[in-house]
């Protein structure tokens, strides 16, 4: 091993480090480590003066390796790598020792121990840095088109922002129309403005935007590649309707004899035909045949739609299409799913006729809904005299979802208002905590308080129709502990609305896996940083927006959508991006082809070369996790920058004071031979 010339710089970070760690002694001690030619301590290494200090020494003392002991590499590694590069030293020959977050800040009461630990971290870095090899970052070109998955309000906004900036966008939506949940609502809180009125124009705009290719009734099947260069395979399911001919006149569904419950758009409260357009303002306007319920597809006869279609657009033979697109960035806006209240049987949904889910009630209040906006019981005619609204159904409940669904309180207030507006029923609102955190929300709550809604604080135990006391017969009884008066109460009502929580899409985990991003146990996608980067994911080039990242309301989804668009636009205008060259490499000369590593790679970057009988890593696909490196039983896979040698050396370094020889002897691989 050639003699490296290592420079070490210990940062005071004002008092942040120096207040606890004796930086001078660390730096003095470090000076005596093998191959360390200079060791300094300085007030603020990240300051321009601190950086110049490093650059100067590299030039004048001919340093071949640099260690800075300061804060977390996630903070300033890029800073000092750049400094090294400016002085002509390969930036990957730099190593950072974290003596702030990992030492001074966490051991404020034990200065000696903190100082010892700092020495250990520095010694580890000094040993490790000498084993590092120079690397060159990969440059990836950013393809211009962007893929947006999910045509809800968040996805629509991402698409519009990018398209308006003049770049091509593919908008993929699973359902026959874009619009998402917002299209199901009648009013939006707290302003109570008409949901359709504000959403429809946006749907229309994105649907007719020259830069937007809309792929509805379609799903992503495969994603390959990396930031800037994703190849995506999409299945465009057959509508059985030729959209070139269809005018959306509606003749077909008005003639369709098959009537089924619409569990998607009408939330199960209404019916639709087998060939249908989800809702009047649907974009695109074309209908789709649901072959499950279509009499022709089930029984082989009918074809009513085809007979009556004036343009002959119905095409029973139409097949799914598969298209492959090349995009530079991907934004996931796959939204949420409503908690299925039947999972809490004691609340009676699915058992007791007059227990409704929040989405059912949204449809009920919607002028174009199954009841034309009338608030009625399950019989479809009787107006309720009393209505109970139950919060946190499937939210803030360790049996189902620990998280708060964020929107239910406001939606419940909206419902309370609408019931008051449309009926003269008494409204009882059962809440745990009233969470009205955004602009004008608390004001809306005040307004409801004055409208005479009865707010009862307590989690409901059960909803039952087992009458016990006089006046309960024929009613739904809400059993609850009123925590403000500290009493059990039984409140008989005609109608119960369950404010079901927001859950991730049931296939969220598969989606996350498909796109190679992280996903919480619950199924919400994981952002790169919970505070500072809630838009990017850990996978470069893949961003998230809207409720797929966590329960959120419309304004927040719209904002996050715009933010995601901004991030994508930044990359597009850069045109290219540097990718860390941390990759695995197989020494084919020495690979014995045991194929242990073959199916370990989450990115299938390892291919087996049959004729040579060896495995090979495709650097374009490899993301450098190193799991194959650790698995290789013949140790012929090397993980760049986290090499076997560098980590073994670092272990010896951090244990300098524990090792028999006080950590002075340096041996990288072979065991020492017993001295004679």
């Amino acid at each position: 091993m050639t003699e490296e010339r290592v420079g070490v710089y210990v940062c005071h970070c004002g008092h942040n480090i120096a207040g606890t760690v004796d930086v001078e002694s660390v730096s003095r001690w470090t000076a005596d480590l093998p191959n360390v030619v200079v060791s300094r301590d300085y007030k603020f290494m990240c300051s321009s003066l601190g950086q110049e200090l490093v650059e100067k020494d590299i030039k004048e003392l001919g340093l071949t390796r640099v260690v800075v002991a300061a804060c977390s590499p996630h903070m300033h590694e890029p800073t000092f790598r750049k400094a090294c590069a400016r002085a002509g030293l390969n930036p990957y020959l730099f190593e950072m020792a974290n003596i702030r977050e990992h030492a001074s800040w966490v051991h404020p009461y034990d200065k000696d121990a903190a100082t010892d630990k700092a020495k250990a971290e520095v010694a580890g870095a000094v040993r490790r840095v000498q084993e590092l090899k120079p690397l060159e970052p990969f440059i990836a070109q950013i393809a211009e088109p962007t893929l947006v998955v999910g045509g809800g309000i968040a996805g629509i906004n991402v698409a519009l922002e990018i398209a308006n900036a003049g770049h091509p966008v593919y908008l993929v939506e699973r359902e026959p129309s874009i619009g998402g949940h917002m299209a199901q609502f009648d009013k939006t809180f707290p302003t109570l403005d008409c949901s359709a009125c504000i959403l429809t124009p946006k749907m229309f705009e994105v649907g007719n935007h020259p830069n937007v290719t809309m792929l509805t009734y379609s799903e992503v099947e495969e994603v390959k590649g990396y930031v800037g260069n994703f190849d995506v395979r999409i299945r465009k399911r057959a509508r059985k309707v030729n959209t070139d001919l269809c005018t959306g006149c509606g003749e077909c569904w008005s003639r369709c004899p098959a009537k089924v419950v619409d569990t998607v758009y009408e939330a199960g409260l209404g019916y639709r035909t087998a060939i249908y357009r989800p809702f009047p303002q649907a974009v695109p306007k074309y209908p789709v045949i649901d072959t499950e319920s279509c009499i022709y597809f089930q029984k082989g006869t009918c074809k009513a739609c085809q007979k009556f279609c004036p343009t002959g657009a119905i095409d029973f033979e139409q097949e799914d299409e598969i298209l492959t697109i090349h995009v530079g960035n991907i934004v996931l806006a796959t939204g949420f799913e409503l908690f299925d209240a039947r999972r809490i049987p004691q609340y009676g949904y699915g058992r007791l006729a007059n227990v409704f889910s929040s989405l059912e009630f949204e449809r009920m209040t919607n002028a174009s809904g199954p009841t034309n906006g009338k608030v009625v019981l399950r019989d479809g005619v009787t107006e309720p005299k009393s209505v109970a609204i139950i919060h946190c159904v499937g939210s803030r409940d360790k049996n189902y979802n620990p998280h708060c669904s964020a929107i239910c309180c406001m939606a419940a207030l909206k419902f309370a208002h609408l019931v008051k507006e449309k009926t003269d029923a008494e409204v009882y609102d059962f809440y745990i905590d009233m969470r009205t955190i955004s602009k004008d929300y608390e004001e809306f709550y005040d307004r409801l308080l004055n409208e005479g809604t009865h707010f009862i604080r307590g989690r409901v135990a059960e909803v039952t129709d087992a009458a016990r006391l006089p006046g309960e017969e024929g009613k739904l009884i809400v059993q609850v502990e009123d925590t403000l008066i500290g009493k059990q109460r039984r409140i008989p009502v005609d109608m119960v609305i369950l404010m079901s929580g927001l859950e991730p899409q049931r296939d969220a985990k598969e989606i996350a896996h498909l796109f190679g991003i992280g996903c919480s146990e619950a199924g919400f996608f994981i952002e790169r940083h919970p505070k500072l980067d809630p838009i990017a994911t850990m996978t470069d080039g893949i961003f998230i927006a809207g409720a797929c990242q966590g329960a959120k309301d419309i304004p927040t989804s719209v904002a996050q959508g715009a933010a995601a668009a901004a991030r994508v636009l930044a990359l597009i205008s850069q045109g290219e991006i540097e990718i860390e060259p941390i990759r695995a490499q197989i020494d084919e000369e020495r690979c014995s082809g045991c194929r242990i590593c073959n199916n370990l790679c989450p990115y299938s970057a390892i291919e087996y070369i049959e004729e040579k009988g060896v495995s090979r890593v495709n650097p374009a696909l490899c993301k450098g996790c190193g799991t194959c490196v650790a698995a290789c039983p013949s140790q012929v896979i090397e993980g760049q920058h986290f090499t076997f040698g560098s980590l073994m050396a670092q272990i010896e370094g951090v244990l300098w004071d524990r090792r028999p020889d006080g950590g002075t002897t340096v041996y990288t691989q072979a065991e020492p031979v017993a001295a004679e």
Partner: protein
Amino acid sequence: MPEQDFNQYNPAWGDRHPVIVGFLCNWCSYRAADLAGISRFTYPATLRDIRIMCTGRLDPTFVLKALREGADGVLVMGCHPGQCHYESGNYKAMRRMALLRRTLAQLGVHPDRVQLGWASAAQGNIFTETVTRMTEAIARLGPLQWNDTINDLAPRTPALPEMEEVAHG
């Protein structure tokens, strides 16, 4: 916490404290450790951490090396299952650690000395608890001092305890 006397757990510590080598994954647990610092949580100064990209990179050799070089324990921490930045590296770590711990048990290394845990980037508190808990576990077990075992291999003087036994045997 103020300076700790580890002899309360086990008198064998004398004037030194337990030393744990930590292998933290770049994406979750290392950031959790950063967050613990930013939040000014405190935990015993027993952990000396080494950053790896993913717990999937953890070659069991590193753990053995650390024990051999004088560590009293090794803590490996990664992202929660299902949250691995590389999708499944932490599952591989889970399996390797399971097999490693079984092997080490046969070599007389108590399983508590080699632990695996998870902490997401947002869980500085969990990181802190884990280090504190593990430190206590190891404090109770006492020093590992593998070198003593190694030195027993190479008795330089004929005045071996075993040999004296034999003499008076």
